């Protein structure tokens, strides 16, 4: 077990920002921390990084308390920060030296990441002369420069255009291939589904859902049915006890109780000789799971 976060809590006066969060990264890969704004994700990350004191719990890295000062930990913060008026190369050298790196290694790492992230034209610029996207790239270089074993990415793709988002995704895939331990906080559910094995969904400081993403989805079963046909299928659906949840020009979506309902509808469409364009039976998306659990948590809080 490489990273073990056990029962960490944070209290500000009467306000509880984090209530007994526990999770672990047993294998290299990406762990997702999801949640609404103010759910406690950034607080959890700051506690893991030792920036914030905790009221309870512990954070262990390979069995010992995690100390980012002595371990090489890379961190891309949600709120980006660089010295606006200083040259970016000087800033990167400074950040790398603080990580204990020597100049030749720093130069080598900068050359590699600047090539990879297409930053070579900006070597002599100050941070304030760069676009927001390029500043974000510099921050990613700062997080990766020391080749950390543990990488924490807080909203890595927010504010990026599709081309730069793809560049970032390539980098994340590269780090996964290098067997890095990555914690990612992100509001873009497709990105989480693309990279993450395990997730925690948080709401108001509580973990409302935790586990392996594939297993969570499997536990729901294939309950989403999406149909497109060149004819009216709604009467046939009603005969099968199905009520549409969404009707759009391209799809009619149903929530099914069992896969038998879907088979029944398919047989009826074929028997009625209605040309079928698409018949898609699938598991719920992470977005749907997220919304469902947050709504449940809110209902529970309202009752309490």
């Amino acid at each position, binding site marked *: 077990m490489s990273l073990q976060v056990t029962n960490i809590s944070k209290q500000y006066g009467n306000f509880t920002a984090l209530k007994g969060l526990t999770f672990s990264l047993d294998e290299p890969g990406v762990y997702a921390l999801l949640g609404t704004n103010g759910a406690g994700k950034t607080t959890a990350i*700051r506690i893991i990084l030792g*920036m914030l004191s905790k009221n309870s719990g512990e954070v262990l890295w390979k069995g010992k308390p995690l100390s980012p*000062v002595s371990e090489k*930990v890379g961190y891309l*913060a949600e709120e980006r*920060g*660089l*010295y606006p008026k200083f040259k970016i190369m000087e800033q990167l050298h400074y950040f790398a030296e*603080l990580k204990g790196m020597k100049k030749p290694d720093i130069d080598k790492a900068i050359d590699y990441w600047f090539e990879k992230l297409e930053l070579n034209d900006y070597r002599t610029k100050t941070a304030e002369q760069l676009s927001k996207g390029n500043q974000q790239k510099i921050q990613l270089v700062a997080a990766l420069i020391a080749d950390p074993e543990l990488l924490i990415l807080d909203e890595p793709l927010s504010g990026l255009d599709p081309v730069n988002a793809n560049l970032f995704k390539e980098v994340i895939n590269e780090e996964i291939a290098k067997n890095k331990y990555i914690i990612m906080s992100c509001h873009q559910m497709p990105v989480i589904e693309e990279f993450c094995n395990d997730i925690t969904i948080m709401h108001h400081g509580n973990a409302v859902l935790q586990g392996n993403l594939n297993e969570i989805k499997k536990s729901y079963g294939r309950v989403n049915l999406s149909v497109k046909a060149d004819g009216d299928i709604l009467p046939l659906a009603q005969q099968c006890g199905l009520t549409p949840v969404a009707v759009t020009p391209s799809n009619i979506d149903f929530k099914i109780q069992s896969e038998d309902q879907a088979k029944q509808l398919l047989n009826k469409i074929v028997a009625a000789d209605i040309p079928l364009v698409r018949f898609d039976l699938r598991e719920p998306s992470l977005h749907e799971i997220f919304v469902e659990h947050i709504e449940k948590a809110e209902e529970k809080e309202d009752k309490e």
Partner: protein
Amino acid sequence: MSTHGWQKVFKFTFIQQLKSKSFIISSVLICTLIFAMMILLGLLPTLTGGDDSSSGGVTGDITINKLYIVDNSGITEAKDYLDSFKEMNIEVIAAADSSEAEGYSEIVKNGTACLLLTFEKQENYISIHAGRPADESVTSEEANHIAAMAESVFNYKRLEKFGLDQSQISTALAPTSTGTSVIGEKTVNPIVEAIKAMVPMLSSLILFILIIVYGQLVAQSIALEKTSKVMELLLTSVRPLAVIIGKILAMGSLSLMQFMMFILSGVAGGAIAMPMLMNFAASSLTPSIPGGAVPDGAAGEAGADFINELLGYIGEALSGFNAVSLIYIVIVFLIGFIFFALIAGLIGASINRSEDLNNAMQPFALIGVAGFYLAYFPSIFAPLEEGGENLFMTLSYYLPISSPFALPSAMLTGNMNAIEGLISILILLVCTVLLAMLVARIYEQVIMHTGNKLKISDILGMAKNK
């Protein structure tokens, strides 16, 4: 609490600040000003005409061509003045008596830039009178100047006639000063007292400016890192305490370096101004010797005497100036800077928006100003009081908010001995260590605080609850 990595923070902060436009411009500007002021001090006596009150104050060239002398003093003759005025291309013409002088005065009336100088023996004194043409071709200042020169030659000559040599004449003509004091009490020299009053003013002011300005820079730098979120990146590599220590020491070193640059500028300016002052002293303090016959080295000697006298006054005023006091001053400056910078750093860390910094820094400025005035006012009034010291002055030596401003001048002027200085430094050191412990206790909480604006009570609450 780990301070690992403070050296790297120090190096980066020092280099970036050294390269900053604000540091370069302020250093060049202030050093140039100090240098220019020193040069100006050397030039000032020359520019203002030096001792003009006695010589009449001539700002331009002398336009007089001829000097008619009627000498009825019975001591000197017109020929005694020949050589003195020859240097100024003024022809000296002797007039036998007043009737002949009347003839000359007719020439004078014709306006040929002439002057009629009359020496008359009166009952108890000798009168020297300069008559100038009515057409204003000779100004009254020129006439006064020539009359004063003639008076110097006359005084010299009359002593020479009594058989005195050059050295005896210089001694006889040396200026005198008078003063009164109570028997048994130390004689008060007004020049020494003036220097003693100026030293606290200048040293307190310079130290105040350096400590407050660089303290503000520490706060600004920490606030920038917090508000721009760079701090979050730094804190994955170093602890907050290492950041504040690195920054404070870097800013302290820079302020000390800038202080030394100011001193060196002053010394360089002084080195250029000193020969000017010596030349001025030579020309204005050497007794006029007829025929321009200033003895070899006499001007230099007179200048050196003047400078030595001045240095003597400065030496008396700064009786405590020695290697030990200099070490004390550097130490108290550095500890004092750390004391104030810790407060500034904590304030910088407590704000969440850079625009709040100025408001948040007001308590810091108030503490600094209070310390400065406590050090400054009692020390300039104390020399006028009985015993030269008062309660506020003593208080200012030992209170940590004022001792960094008060100790240097007190040591330099000899108002504080080495033991008292050591006690003052120890009190400041203990208070700085206690403050550092308090800051270390709460700094990590303050720097990551992003909620409501922190009040002093919140900060103290953090220290209590840690």
